[in-house]
């Protein structure tokens, strides 16, 4: 029998048991749709993390002060005070390929304005930070190199802090806020950046020259981090190694002792985050795949029932000249049609649900062509795999035994 006729016969057989066909296909539909949606949500999460990393700047190397302490007592990260603004200056001058650099230190404190007050993160930085994080001002401007050198009491507000202290959308440039009982002049408000990859609100912050934080707020000489932005095309691994070597020399660390700082690239942090989300994606897709296999077993079950039920039909077909390969193909094609039809509907449903998740839950969900191709392929494979045993069982029937089956 030609393949086309086999296909037509299979379709007719499936149509004769429409309800059963629909329910069997439902197993496939749910399985395929689940895989598509899970992979879409996972991919969406990964890509939104990627996007955030990109917006934070992908050519960034972070130097943070290391954990200190001697002997059994280990202090937390940033406890070491050996990292200084001079280190940053040395990095800028001695290592080629650096575009921007910003030493920084943070403190959490209360910020008070006439209308209200707010507890937030105060970040000390250099004037380069705005460029490093490509963070333009909504109102006013970022502080300048001179502000840093003179340790002026000027602040740039994140949009959340502005909203809390002055009200949403207000331009507070020129106003005074008080931090630790000292007046600071607001010279700018930053545009909203939203949540960072780890969930903290990037807009809930106040920025001022790091020298101001050192001298006016904390009374220290060191910094806790140095943010370095490389020229395009500079390999970040090499740069990290060069920075580490320079800092070891400057901090007079003997060979064999630990670094008193930590050098990381944002790419590394991004890959940690991405690998976390892809682990989640694999987990979810794995669970969804289980339902796909259950759907496949459903198909096998129904095909076995169908072979038993139609034993006399098989006998008749053999009696009028069907070869065993004809019978094998008939049932195999039936099972493949069942799983592929289920797969196709499942893909459509997966698209729909992904879109719904995106609209209703505001998650980013991306249906990738590879996920579609994969689930369609898996559906076909399931049709062949789970259809083969029942089909072979049918094909191996002895004509007379099949005809006389009651």
């Amino acid at each position, binding site marked *: 029998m030609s393949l086309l006729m086999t296909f037509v016969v299979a379709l007719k057989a499936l149509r004769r048991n429409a309800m059963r066909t629909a329910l069997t296909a439902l197993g496939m539909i749910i399985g395929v749709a689940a895989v598509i949606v899970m992979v879409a949500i996972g991919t969406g999460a990964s890509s939104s993390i990627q996007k955030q990393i990109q917006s934070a700047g992908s050519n960034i190397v972070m130097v943070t002060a290391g954990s200190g302490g001697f002997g059994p007592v280990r202090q937390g990260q940033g406890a070491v005070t050996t990292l200084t603004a001079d280190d940053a200056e040395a990095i800028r001058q001695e290592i080629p390929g650096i575009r921007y650099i910003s030493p920084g230190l943070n403190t959490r404190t209360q910020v008070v304005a006439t209308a209200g007050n707010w507890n937030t993160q105060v970040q000390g930085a250099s004037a380069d930070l705005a460029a490093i994080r490509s963070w333009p001002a909504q109102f006013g401007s970022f502080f300048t190199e001179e502000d840093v050198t003179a340790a002026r009491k000027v602040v740039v507000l994140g949009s959340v802090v502005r909203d809390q202290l002055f009200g949403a959308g207000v331009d507070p440039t020129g106003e005074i806020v008080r931090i630790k009982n000292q007046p600071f002049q607001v010279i700018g408000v930053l545009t909203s950046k939203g949540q960072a990859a780890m969930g903290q609100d990037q807009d809930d912050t106040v920025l001022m020259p790091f020298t101001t934080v050192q001298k006016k707020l904390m009374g220290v000489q060191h910094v806790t981090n140095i943010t370095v932005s490389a020229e395009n095309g500079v390999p970040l691994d090499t740069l990290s190694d060069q920075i580490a070597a320079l800092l070891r020399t400057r901090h007079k660390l003997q060979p064999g002792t630990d670094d008193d700082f930590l050098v990381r690239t944002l790419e590394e942090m991004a890959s940690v985050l991405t690998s976390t989300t892809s682990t989640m994606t694999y987990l979810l897709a794995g669970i969804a795949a289980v339902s796909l296999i259950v759907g496949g077993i459903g198909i096998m079950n129904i095909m076995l029932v169908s072979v038993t039920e139609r034993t*006399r039909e098989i006998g008749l077909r053999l009696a*009028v000249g*069907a*070869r*065993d390969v*004809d019978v094998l193909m008939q049932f195999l094609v039936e099972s493949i049609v069942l799983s592929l039809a289920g797969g196709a509907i499942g893909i459509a449903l997966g698209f729909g649900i992904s879109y719904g998740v995106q609209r209703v839950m505001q998650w980013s969900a991306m249906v990738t062509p590879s996920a579609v191709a994969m689930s369609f392929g898996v559906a076909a494979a399931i049709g062949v795999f789970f259809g083969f045993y029942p089909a072979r069982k049918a094909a191996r029937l002895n*004509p*007379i035994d099949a*005809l006389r089956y009651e």
Partner: protein
Amino acid sequence: MSGQGGGGLQGPRSVIAVRELTKTYDLGELQVHALRGVSLDVAPGEFVALTGPSGSGKSTFMHLLGCLDRPTAGQYVLNGSDVSTLSSRDLARVRNTEIGFVFQGFNLLSRTSALENVELPLLYAGKIPASERRDRASEALKSVGLGDRLGHHPNQLSGGQQQRVAIARALVNNPTLLLADEPTGNLDTRTSIEVMGLFQKLNIERGITIVLVTHEADIAEYGTRVIAFRDGMVKSDGAVAHRRDAVIEVARLREQAA
């Protein structure tokens, strides 16, 4: 026309020639000897009735003739070629092109039109265009008097009509041999006679060789030759002395009813 069963008549002219055909069913400890060495010949154009009590081996013999089962020992030559040693693939072709089957239970595909049921053997007969399949199937249905029932499904047809669809299906590939296993077993007397009339017509007008299994003596008398089985062997084999004519009998039944 009628052969003297059992010996001597084998030749190129025989449709069926079997020699020492044996079939033993191995049921673990028990061995059932369904056929114990049957030898006979059937010439073209014969209408043979196989009779005998149940368990006599007549059905087993029929299945072997139809290549639905393989003999344990012995030789079966169909239309001059030995089919007892063929592969299952070649047997399928023999069943498709040289043999037509009619069963007691009709064995029609349910929820499938008469036309499609009759087309079934053509689907397995190699590449035949759909239009030709359709033409040949409707031709076969017309020849059994069902030209106006092409689109009917089996459950919309009477028992006699269903059996005629089955006969049309058996004829559609123009076989040389028509095998019928208790074809009237599920039919009432009058319909039985009508169906036998159809067989007689095919036998006489088209010269198709027919082998029919029945346990009813009167049905056997529509044939030209009766072979009686007993305990897996041929008990008797002879020509029918007074062959019944279904056409006349149906006409008589109509008169009585009128």
